[in-house]
C-alpha cells in the first residue's frame, strides 16, 4: 500500500469487494467496541483513511506484546489493520539491522515529523543515566525523548510501557519508569496488559485510522472503551459471586461447577480490561473461563500487589518493615507459619477428590 492510497483502495487491490469491506468495517466496529450501527460511519471514514507512519520502540521488555499481536489469528482483522499502517521501524520485525535500521527510524522521524504514531513496549530504565538498556549505543531514555518530540501521539503497549511492569517490581534495580513518567508534552495512551489483548492494540490503531485521533481515556490513560469495566463486571461467573458460590480450591466441587474464583485470588474485581468480553485466541476463552483467576496483569504494580492466589480481601503488608519484623520474630513466627501451612495442606487434602481415568471417561 502506497502512502497516498486510501484504505479502501488498498483493500480493493487485495481483491476485497465492497461486501468484504462492509464485513471488515462491521468487524472493526466490533473491535472498537462501537455499536453495530456505527459500521457505516466506520466504512465511510476508513474508505478515506490514509496510511499513518508508525515507529515502534522496544525497551525493557520480553517481546510478549509483539508476539501477542503478530501471532494473533491471521489472516484477520488485526492483520489488515496492521497492514494498513506503515510500520517504519520495529527492531524485532524489520529486515534491516544495525545502522540501516536506525537510519530508517531517523528518516521516518524527519519525513513525518509531527504526524507519526510512536508505539512503545517495555519500560525505560532511568537510574544511573539510563545505562541499563541501550540500542545502537543510545540509551532507551534518550531514544524515547528524541522520538517523542516529533510524534503526533505516543501509545504505550503493555504494562511495562504503561506502568513500569515487571522491571518496575520491587526493588526496581534499573529505576524502570513508564512512558508517561517521562513524556509529558505529548498525548500518551496506555494499553496495559501482560501482554495486552491483540484486538485492543489494533482497536486503538483502528480508532486512530478511523477518526484521526485517540479514543477517550480514563484517569490512568487507558481507552475507556476497552478498560471501562472491571473483569468482574463483565465476568460470566459474576452471578455465582452474587449468590455466594465460590471455589475454595482448584479441584473442589465449586471449581468443577465453574463457580466464582474470588477466594482463589482472582483479581477480577479490581482489574480493568476487556478479557471477559473480547477474550483471547480468536475469542476462544480467557483465564477465568479456563479455571484460573485473573492475576490483574493490566493494573499498575500487579507484581507487588501480594500473592496471585490470595483473595483480594487478604491484607497485604508488602515486602518491607512488616517482613523484617516477621524475620526478627524468628523461630516463633516460623513455627506459626509452618503450622498454618500444615493446616492448609490438611484441609486441601480433605477437599481433594481423586479422579481416575475411568471416572473421567464416565
Amino acid at each position, binding site marked *: 500500500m502506497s502512502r497516498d492510497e486510501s484504505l479502501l483502495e488498498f483493500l480493493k487491490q487485495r481483491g*476485497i*469487494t*465492497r*461486501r*468484504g469491506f*462492509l*464485513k*471488515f468495517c*462491521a*468487524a472493526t*466496529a*466490533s*473491535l472498537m*467496541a462501537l*455499536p*453495530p*450501527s456505527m*459500521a457505516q460511519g466506520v466504512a465511510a471514514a476508513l474508505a478515506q483513511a490514509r496510511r499513518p507512519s508508525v515507529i515502534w520502540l522496544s525497551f525493557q521488555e520480553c517481546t510478549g506484546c509483539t508476539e501477542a499481536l503478530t501471532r494473533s*489469528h*491471521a*489472516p*484477520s*482483522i488485526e492483520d489488515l489493520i496492521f497492514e494498513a499502517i506503515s510500520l517504519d521501524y520495529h527492531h524485532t520485525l524489520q529486515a534491516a539491522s544495525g545502522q540501516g535500521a536506525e537510519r530508517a527510524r531517523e528518516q521516518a522521524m524527519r519525513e513525518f515529523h509531527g504526524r507519526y504514531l510512536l508505539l512503545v513496549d517495555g519500560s525505560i530504565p532511568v537510574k544511573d543515566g539510563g545505562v541499563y538498556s541501550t540500542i545502537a549505543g543510545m540509551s532507551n531514555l534518550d531514544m524515547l525523548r528524541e522520538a517523542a518530540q516529533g510524534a503526533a501521539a505516543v501509545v504505550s503497549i503493555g504494562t511495562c510501557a504503561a506502568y513500569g511492569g515487571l522491571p518496575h517490581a520491587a526493588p526496581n534495580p534499573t529505576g524502570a519508569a513508564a512512558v508517561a513518567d517521562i513524556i509529558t508534552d505529548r498525548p500518551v495512551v496506555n494499553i496495559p496488559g501482560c501482554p495486552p489483548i491483540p484486538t485492543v492494540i489494533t482497536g486503538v490503531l483502528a480508532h486512530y485510522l478511523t477518526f484521526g485521533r485517540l479514543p477517550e481515556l480514563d484517569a490512568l490513560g487507558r481507552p475507556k472503551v476497552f478498560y471501562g469495566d472491571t473483569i468482574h463486571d*463483565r*465476568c*460470566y461467573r*459474576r*452471578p*455465582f459471586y452474587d449468590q455466594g*458460590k465460590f471455589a475454595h480450591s482448584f479441584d473442589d466441587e465449586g471449581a*468443577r*461447577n*465453574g*463457580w466464582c474464583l474470588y477466594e482463589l485470588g482472582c483479581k477480577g474485581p479490581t482489574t480493568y480490561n476487556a478479557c*471477559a*468480553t*473480547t477474550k483471547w485466541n*480468536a*475469542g476462544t476463552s480467557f483465564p477465568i473461563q479456563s479455571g484460573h483467576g485473573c492475576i490483574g496483569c493490566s493494573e499498575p504494580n500487579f507484581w507487588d500487589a501480594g500473592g496471585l492466589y490470595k483473595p483480594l480481601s487478604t491484607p497485604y503488608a508488602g515486602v518491607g518493615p512488616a517482613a523484617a519484623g516477621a524475620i526478627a520474630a524468628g523461630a516463633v513466627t516460623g513455627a506459626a507459619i509452618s503450622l498454618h501451612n500444615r493446616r492448609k495442606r490438611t484441609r486441601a487434602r480433605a477437599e481433594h477428590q481423586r479422579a481416575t*481415568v475411568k471416572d*473421567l*471417561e*464416565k
Partner: protein
Amino acid sequence: MGLDDIGVHVVHGGGNGNGRALLNEVARLLEKLLQTGEGGSIDLAGMPLSGEDYDLLDDVLGEGEVHAEVTALGATEVIEAGVPGVWWITHYNAAEEVMAEFIEVAFCPEILQSPPEDVKEGLEALRARLLEEHLSG
C-alpha cells in the same frame, strides 16, 4: 485422539441472565422494524454470554428457512432464525475463525444485499459487453 475424546464432564452452573436480556432487546428491535422499517444489530461480543445463554438464544430463536453463505474476506454465515426478521450473522476469516458475531433484525440482512456501487459498475460492465457483442456480431 481429539479434544472430544477426552472424558471431561462439564457442569454448567446456569445462565447469567444476559441471554434473556438479549431476547428482550431483539423483541424491541422487531417492534421498531415493523413500525419504522429500520431494525438494528446486536454485537454478541459485547455481552458476557455463558453456554446456557447461547442455548437459551438457540432454543427461543430457533432456525428458519434461509441459510446463506457469503464469500468475501472469508465466509459469512447468514441464518434466518425461527422468528422471521431475526438473523444470525457470523463473520469468519479465511482460517475459519470467528471474527465477529451479530444478531441482525431486518427484513433482509445488509450483507446479502448488492451494494448500489457494485450494481452501477455491473450495469456498466454489462452495457460494455453488449456493445462488444453488437460490434462483433
